[in-house]
């Protein structure tokens, strides 16, 4: 009986030492960036030095992968800024230029296809009617008789249900009102997609495919940097542009000037002029999500 006990202890010690040795070998086999990536904390809790190091590593990684000089910014919100967006429904002609400008600027996957902006065609007689809207319209020329167009993307809600349901706290609202996702913390549960009443969030079912020559190397950590498979992404008002004082790409490309963007806290901004002088529509207002994306009729 005693003999048996001794043997089992020896076996136990052997197994433990083997296990420790094995895990040490496995850990040493992991390259440093992989290890760091796995144990990286939430972006919000990182120190400035940690952020700088992570951004530098990402720049190296993406530059090697895509053969271009990448910049990955971690620029914080500008003080006293709260972004708002307005869209003139009477001007939009449904040309989808905004959709593809957004795809190019924000490195959205071409295959499988991801579009952060959806342009819905609706009948004038029926009014705003999502149930009977058409996203796949493709006539020779637009606008078509008897129709109008409602582009929909993330509404950057002030009371966002997507943030409340995230079990990993991987999505939050920044001080300038932009709702962002930390792709390194997203666990891909898609609760946020289920909770979003505007269908504004998109899941990477496969490794995103972006042709090397079309990649935009000017990126933001919380915005348009290339995303991995299995995470959710969404419109960020082109965070990499607006925090540098530029307009979002959809605003710049719109051939009819129906898109307006600006700082809601600036009483002299165009967006404030619209809100002060026009009656606006917010989608699904009854849900109390308080969107910062407004629709109006400029006619």
């Amino acid at each position: 009986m005693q003999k048996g006990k001794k043997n089992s202890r020896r076996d136990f010690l052997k197994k433990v030492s083997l296990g420790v040795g094995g895990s040490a070998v496995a850990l040493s086999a992991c390259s440093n960036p992989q290890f760091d990536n796995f144990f990286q904390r939430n972006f919000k809790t990182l120190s400035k030095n940690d952020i700088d190091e992570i951004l530098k590593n990402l720049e190296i990684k993406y530059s090697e992968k895509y053969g271009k000089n990448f910049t990955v910014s971690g620029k914080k919100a500008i003080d006293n800024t709260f972004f708002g967006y307005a869209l003139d429904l009477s001007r939009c002609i449904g040309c989808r230029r905004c959709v593809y400008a957004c795809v190019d600027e924000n490195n959205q996957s071409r295959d499988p296809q991801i579009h952060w902006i959806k342009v819905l065609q609706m009948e004038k007689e029926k009014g705003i009617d999502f149930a009977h809207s058409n996203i796949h319209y493709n006539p020779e020329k637009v606008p078509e008789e008897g129709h109008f167009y409602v582009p929909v993307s993330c509404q950057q809600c002030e009371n966002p249900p997507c943030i409340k349901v995230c079990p990993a706290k991987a999505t939050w609202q920044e001080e300038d009102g932009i709702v962002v996702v930390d792709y390194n913390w997203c666990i891909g549960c898609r609760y946020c997609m289920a909770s979003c009443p505007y269908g504004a969030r998109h899941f990477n079912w496969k490794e995103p495919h972006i042709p090397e020559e079309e990649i935009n190397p000017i990126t933001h950590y919380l915005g348009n940097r290339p995303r991995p498979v299995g995470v959710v992404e969404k419109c960020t008002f082109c965070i990499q542009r607006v925090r540098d004082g530029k307009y979002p790409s959809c605003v710049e490309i719109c051939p009819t000037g129906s898109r307006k963007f600006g700082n809601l806290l600036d009483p002299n901004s165009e967006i404030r002029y619209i809100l002060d002088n026009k009656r606006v529509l917010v989608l699904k207002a009854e849900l109390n999500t308080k969107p910062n994306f407004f629709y109006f009729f400029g006619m």
Partner: protein
Amino acid sequence: MEIETKKTNRSGFIKQIMLGLISAFSFGLIAFKTQKEKSSVQKNINTLSDSETNKLTALIDHSKVTRTKPELPPHKA
């Protein structure tokens, strides 16, 4: 010597407390101002009802707009 060090420490401590209080107060003031501005913007928004929106959509006039070829629609799932 010991008493002197003690005195310096106490004044340093009070200074730090004062600095902390002033910075907390100013941060609070800025946050309050921003929040007030935000809520006043939200309060002043004059929203359209569904019926009003539907009336306005019926009035949209594209007759003078130059027609253009649209970009491709998204792939059908």
